[in-house]
């Protein structure tokens, strides 16, 4: 691509803002404000931006040094290769899945808020059928994604900023003075502060879209780091200002029910009346649709890349005959988005998306250190300042932010962390199965699975008298015996195999 067709600094900043400003500000502030940090959510936002900036410095160096499509997956592949790069790709994919699922949940919420103004009975209908609505919107976006319809990010970013400016401008007449902006360090105040920081992290990570578009940017060695810094500053200012107003007009002891709108919508309603609620609901709807669409694009690109490198089945990189999109990868990813989205568990999804991103951030910082040592003479148009302090700080903060919500005893955080660990286990198993080529290893797997089924069947038979009702007893015994015999057949088949 010639230089004249590449994007300049302004377009790069728009790309970063477009990736970051989205549904997260509608989804995450509620729990962070009402249940975690209270007004000190403002301090948590600021701290979040600092941590994000530290890792973005590592991203800047890596993207300037390796301006190729793939982002984190490419950096870890060059630095480590093997299981580490596969893990980075999968974690990035999972974070995108959880983010897409959360965006679908927010879409349904915002649609409910919109109709709460015009037609409350329709809002009740939406709230009662949220799962179906999420499935419908994801299916429609899948079809659009397969057809290669892309979102207009300049229009969306411009629209958001315009709505936020109106919101901030009209709040001038309000006496805003949120108390306790600085976190209280007594009791569990510090833990809640860090948990809030971890929870709000997805609000900033979207600016990685700028890194993904690095190959399309003119003079990436200079423009990408500049764009990252400018984007971080602009995002921090916008988020801080909007949250300051929202926290200032909505008291923390506001009574809440299941159908309560998100914090921003409540603040908009307070300042601008029903028009404000509608405006922000429309913004939230566009934000969430854009995020789900972007997530599908990222997911299919990641799966396609890992498939191309042999980590995943070839089918995932297959292109549609007519539209040229990775339609199988899009469909596979969207199924996961649907499964998680239909849970409606917004707080769980928020933590899960955050944890995935934090783990990826830690791997990116590690990759920077590894590449500096492994390839010290590599041309680096931009170098992260204060090396090695910045990547080390990035790794430490990522680990701490992972730990604090669990230390706090937040059930959602613990559930999200355990789910993330479970996903990591599945990733490792997938890597092992994919890399197993020799027949003898396949037989070991067969013996292992046969043994598991033998044990499971035996356990069912032994435990069935005490755990099953009388009516189910014959069925459980039959299932147990079938499982035992099937397990024995697999073990015996491997034993009889000629060498």
């Amino acid at each position: 691509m010639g230089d004249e067709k590449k994007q300049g600094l302004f377009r790069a900043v728009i790309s970063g803002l477009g990736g970051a400003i989205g549904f997260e500000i509608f989804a995450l502030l509620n729990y962070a404000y009402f249940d975690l940090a209270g007004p000190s959510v403002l301090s948590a936002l600021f701290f979040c931006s600092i941590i994000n900036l530290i890792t973005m410095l590592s991203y800047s160096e890596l993207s300037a040094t390796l301006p190729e499509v793939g982002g984190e997956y490419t950096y870890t592949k060059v630095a480590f290769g093997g299981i580490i790069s596969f893990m980075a790709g999968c974690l990035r994919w999972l974070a995108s899945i959880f983010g897409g699922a959360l965006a679908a949940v927010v879409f349904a919420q915002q649609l409910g808020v919109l109709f709460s103004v015009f037609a409350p009975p329709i809002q009740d209908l939406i709230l009662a059928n949220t799962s179906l609505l999420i499935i419908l919107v994801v299916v429609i976006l899948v079809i659009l994604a397969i057809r290669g319809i892309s979102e207009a990010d300049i229009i969306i970013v411009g629209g958001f900023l315009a709505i936020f400016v109106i919101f901030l401008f009209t709040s001038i007449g309000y006496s805003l003075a949120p108390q306790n902006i600085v976190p209280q360090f007594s009791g569990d105040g510090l833990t809640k502060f860090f948990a809030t920081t971890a929870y709000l992290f997805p609000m900033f990570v979207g600016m990685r879209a700028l890194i993904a578009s690095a190959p399309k940017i003119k003079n990436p060695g200079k423009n990408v780091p500049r764009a990252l810094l400018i984007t971080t500053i602009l995002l921090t200012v916008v988020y801080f200002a909007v949250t300051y107003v929202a926290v200032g007009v909505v008291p923390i002891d506001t009574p809440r029910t299941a159908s309560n709108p998100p914090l921003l919508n409540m603040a908009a309603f307070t300042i601008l009346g029903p028009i404000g609620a509608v405006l922000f609901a429309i913004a939230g709807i566009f934000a969430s649709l854009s995020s789900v669409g972007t997530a599908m694009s990222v997911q299919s690109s990641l799966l396609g890349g890992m498939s191309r490198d042999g980590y995943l089945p070839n089918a995932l990189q297959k292109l549609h005959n007519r539209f040229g999109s990775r339609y199988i990868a899009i469909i596979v990813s969207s199924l996961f988005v649907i499964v998680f989205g239909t849970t409606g568990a917004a707080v769980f999804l928020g933590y899960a998306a955050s944890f995935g991103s934090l783990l990826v951030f830690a791997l990116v910082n590690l990759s920077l250190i590894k590449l500096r040592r492994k390839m010290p003479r590599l041309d680096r148009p931009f170098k992260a300042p204060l090396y090695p302090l910045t990547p080390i700080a990035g790794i430490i903060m990522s680990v701490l932010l992972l730990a604090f919500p669990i230390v706090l005893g937040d059930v959602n955080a613990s559930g999200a962390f355990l789910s993330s660990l479970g996903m990591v286990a599945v990733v490792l198993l997938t890597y092992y199965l994919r890399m197993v080529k020799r027949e003898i290893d396949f037989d070991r797997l067969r013996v292992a699975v046969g043994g598991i089924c033998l044990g499971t069947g035996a356990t069912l038979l032994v435990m069935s008298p005490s755990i099953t009702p009388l009516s189910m007893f014959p069925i459980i015994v039959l299932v147990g015996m079938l499982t035992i015999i099937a397990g024995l057949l697999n073990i015996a088949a491997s034993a009889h195999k000629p060498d």
Partner: protein
Amino acid sequence: MENRRILSIIFGIAQSGIGILSGGVTVMLFFNFLEIQTVFNLPTEFMPIYLLVLGLFSLFSLINGFFLVREWWR
């Protein structure tokens, strides 16, 4: 040998069927279709454990059945 192959396909299909059915029950429990949680009188606090156990049982049954059917296929 032929008898073993016939047994393999029969038990492979049966095991795969068990895997699919238990997977279906897992999904139904997760989404509480047809109020199945109430029908089975399952305590809510143990639901994640039930889902995990059923899900794993379904997964391993499917894999086990797949291996047996694959042997017949080859």
